[in-house]
């Protein structure tokens, strides 16, 4: 085993070495257009301007960030939403010329004194959902973009040839260059560009370069992700983190962007020019000590990253197995974090931004690739993280080495491990039922557990093969559902219920059947089913801490707002509650981790020089959250019908699922719906399933009623002009649009509660048009 205290120069990964003819690559570049800008320092967390590039019109300009913009949108994702509102139309789709790919930072992004402070936020109109998708990603690009002089980067238009956008913070220059000869796939392209654009041929210089890339898979599927690099001086590898969800990489390649390169002149601890650096040091050091003392007893992030969740989820019946049919599996111990711990390279630090001592970015170095174009080569695999491991359990793949193979190729081809895995799990279930077969799958035997077929499927996408199945399947579950139904293959209801997508986006990797609040956490979201708005399963299902609809609605208000706040500031959520102070359980609200919330209040004030409290943080989020929902409404996908979720996420779709957890479901029919044991014993499984189905569907609608009410929306899920005004978001164009949509709903009779309220049950308000009073 590798020991620590190895001098940086002496560490070796054992990876296959490449020799690039960088001169030749560079010689083929041709500058399409460029722009010189005046370098200026970041002030209290803001660069105070954004960068705009139009690839069609060959135009580059700066936009000023006003105080008003800061007050209303805070930064990060908020800035992204504002820039998108100003630049797209309600008709804009992912491949429209005017679609805008925005990468933003946030005022706290780039401080080094507190863990988890290097996140970029990426937003664009997603191919999967046709609304805005926002992704939060690590790596050095976000902080470097700000240090180079910009709070955000917008890219509109499309180039005719593959281009590289180079933001040179050293010389104050932006160039857009045609780059024909470089590789497209991430692990090679990132390496080439890191070496090519470094000012000098040494590791220190390479560390000042960060790259955004995607890959061949992103060109031919709707699962394209963006890879954000960070150069690891110990491994001497440009490692990557993914902005995975919603096909951002697909938009990136559709614009013919091969890469974005950002270079900075220097890196040090005070480039944000914070108002009060000593508070940053004080709060940061306190958290470092907490992690030092407690992580090994809590999440063990420093040893295995997010992979520690696999065994917990398996134990609580929450690990998605075979397309979410089951929450645990006899083979699951083969992919517990201990198995990956054996494979991870054990050197420290593993943070994706400087100073992050959560250090969850684990890697396997010197991994020998088994399939595809890089077969036989040795590479660094970043991860796997929990979501990737669970995407594989969802496909019934139980071999850590195949999981690494899947992880490596998804990353280098630039496709999302979550969407790809969830979609393949659905195709596999369809294969099991005979709705799909080898012939219908372009020759692939997509049965559960067939890892080789999974890899071949991914290689086919990357090669751009044109088979009918590959063509549809690479666009995600929603398109495959429509295709299967159109073909008349299989039962429509079964297809709709089992394909785990909502709003067109694939689910992330948790089984939500037994937690109503978490079903809302996936369904009542802005960008589609993911858990970055709320993760309430333990609170709801295990601890039963939020029993009523009102409680659940409060949780589905507070937590999405709170988690949105990380995105506004360029932060990672993990150091908030994946490490907790030793006395957290004794506080008033342990699930909110009050001490850490206070840390963030202090950090925000210390960087920006403002004086806000924890309520103001939630208000900052509420402004942007409602703004994004309003934009969804504007684009035609922000009403109750769009918050639909497939029944597989609510309860048992098949008899096998019911029987596999028969005791649990039978017990619920007795306890929650008043049947007695004799009645239950007489009923067939089908009858019991029907009762459960109706009950759970109704519960979900009642939950939506309560949540819409709590968030200040109409019963059809539309944020009201009154609410927007109250939050200080008074854009007249938006208020007018919202009023029109509410009037439309009124005419169509849609402003009504969704749940069925019987005796002794009340909807959240007795006033039929309650929202008008707000």
């Amino acid at each position, binding site marked *: 085993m590798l020991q*620590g*205290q190895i*001098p940086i120069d002496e560490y070796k990964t054992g990876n296959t070495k490449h020799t690039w003819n960088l001169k030749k690559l560079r010689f083929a570049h041709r500058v399409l257009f460029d722009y010189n800008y005046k370098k200026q320092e970041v002030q209290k967390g803001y660069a105070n301007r954004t960068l705009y590039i139009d690839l069609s019109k060959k135009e580059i300009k700066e936009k000023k960030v006003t105080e008003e913009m800061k007050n209303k949108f805070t930064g990060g994702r908020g800035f992204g939403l504002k820039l998108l509102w100003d630049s797209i139309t309600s008709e804009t789709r992912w491949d429209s010329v005017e679609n805008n790919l925005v990468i933003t930072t946030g005022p706290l992004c780039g401080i080094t004194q507190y863990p988890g402070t290097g996140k970029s936020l990426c937003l664009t109109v997603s191919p999967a959902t046709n609304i805005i998708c926002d992704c939060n990603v690590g790596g050095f690009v976000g902080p470097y973009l700000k240090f180079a002089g910009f709070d955000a980067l917008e890219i509109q238009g499309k180039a005719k040839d593959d281009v590289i956008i180079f933001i040179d913070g050293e010389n104050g220059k932006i160039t857009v260059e045609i780059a024909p000869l470089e590789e497209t796939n991430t692990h090679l392209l990132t390496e080439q560009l890191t070496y090519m654009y470094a000012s000098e041929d040494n590791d220190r210089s390479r560390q000042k370069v960060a790259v955004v890339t995607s890959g061949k898979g992103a060109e031919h599927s709707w699962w394209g992700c963006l890879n954000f690099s960070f150069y690891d001086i110990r491994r001497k590898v440009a490692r990557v983190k993914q902005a995975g969800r919603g096909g951002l990489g697909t938009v990136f390649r559709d614009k013919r962007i091969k890469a974005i390169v950002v270079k900075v002149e220097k*890196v040090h601890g*005070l480039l944000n020019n914070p108002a009060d650096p000593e508070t940053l040091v004080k709060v940061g050091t306190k958290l*470092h000590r907490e992690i030092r003392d407690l992580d090994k007893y809590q999440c*063990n992030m*420093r040893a295995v990253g997010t992979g520690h969740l696999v065994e917990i989820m398996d134990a609580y019946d929450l690990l998605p197995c075979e397309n979410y049919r089951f929450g645990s599996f006899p083979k699951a111990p083969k992919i517990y974090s201990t198995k990956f711990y054996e494979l991870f390279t054990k050197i420290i*630090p593993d943070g994706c931004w400087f100073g992050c001592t959560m*250090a969850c970015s684990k890697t396997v170095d010197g991994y020998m690739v088994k399939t595809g174009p890089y077969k036989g080569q040795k590479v660094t695999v970043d991860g796997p993280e929990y979501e990737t491991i669970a995407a594989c359990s969802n496909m019934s793949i139980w071999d850590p080495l195949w999981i690494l193979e899947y992880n490596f190729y998804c990353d280098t081809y630039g496709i999302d491990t979550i969407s790809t895995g969830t979609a393949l799990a659905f195709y596999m279930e369809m294969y099991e039922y005979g709705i799909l077969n080898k012939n219908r799958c372009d020759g692939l035997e997509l049965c559960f557990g067939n890892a080789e077929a999974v890899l071949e499927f991914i290689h086919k996408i990357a090669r751009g093969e044109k088979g009918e199945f590959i063509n549809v399947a690479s666009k995600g579950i929603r398109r495959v559902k429509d295709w299967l139904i159109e073909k008349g293959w299989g039962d429509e209801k079964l297809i709709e219920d089992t394909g785990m997508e909502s709003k067109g986006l694939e689910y992330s990797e948790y089984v939500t059947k037994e937690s109503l609040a978490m079903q809302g956490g996936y369904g009542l979201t802005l960008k589609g089913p993911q858990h970055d708005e709320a993760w309430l399963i333990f609170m709801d299902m295990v601890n039963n801490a939020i029993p009523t609809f009102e409680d659940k609605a409060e949780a589905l208000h507070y937590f999405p707002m709170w988690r949105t706040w990380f995105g506004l500031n360029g932060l990672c959520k993990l150091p908030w509650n994946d490490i907790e102070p030793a006395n957290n359980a004794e506080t008033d609200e342990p699930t909110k981790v009050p001490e850490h919330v206070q840390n963030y209040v202090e950090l925000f004030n210390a960087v920006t020089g403002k004086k806000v409290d924890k309520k103001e943080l939630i208000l900052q989020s509420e402004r942007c959250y409602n703004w994004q929902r309003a934009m969804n409404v504007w684009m035609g996908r922000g009403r109750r019908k769009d918050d639909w979720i497939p029944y597989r996420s609510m309860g048992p779709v098949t008899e096998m699922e019911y029987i596999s957890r028969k005791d649990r479901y039978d017990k619920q029919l007795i306890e929650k719906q008043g049947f007695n044991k004799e009645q239950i014993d007489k009923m067939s499984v089908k009858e019991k399933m029907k009762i459960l189905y109706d009950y759970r569907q109704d519960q979900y609608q009642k939950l939506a009623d309560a949540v819409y009410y709590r968030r200040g929306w109409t019963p059809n899920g539309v944020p009201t002009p009154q609410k927007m005004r109250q939050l200080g978001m008074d854009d007249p164009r938006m208020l007018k649009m919202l009023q029109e949509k509410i009037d439309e709903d009124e005419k169509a009779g849609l402003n009504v509660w969704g749940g069925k309220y019987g005796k002794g049950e009340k909807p959240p308000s007795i006033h039929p048009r309650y929202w008008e009073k707000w």
Partner: protein
Amino acid sequence: MDKPKKVKILKFHPEKCNGCLECEKACSMVHFKTKDGGDKSAIRIIKNGDRYQMHVCDQRGLCLDMCPVGALTRRKNGVVWLDKDLCIGCQACVGFCPINAMRKSVSRIQPFKCISCGACVRACPNGALELVEVKIDEIKEIVYHKLGV
């Protein structure tokens, strides 16, 4: 390059100390060119009842693997050294030092630590401090195994 095998660390003779803090003043002179001592000194003398205790880095090097930019290295003479031009001020080493001997003063964002220079030894009027040589292999600790797991 041959790896250093030995390092000098400070040894304290509490019976000889009278709490004059000349050592702290000498240390802050080395690091910050002031005679303030206290927060600006890598060595601290703490009164405990009627006896004195020394608190200083023992050169175990646990922080070496913590530094994200490689600003912490073991020099030829075995001393764990922070290069403040490379340091990005993240305080990971300060937070993770098991004996809290990596210091941070308000004067600058980069931390500082004992470099076994001997200024305090020379400054002590009573001979309470001494530099002694120890084998690195016998004292070194590795962060991953000690703190990560």
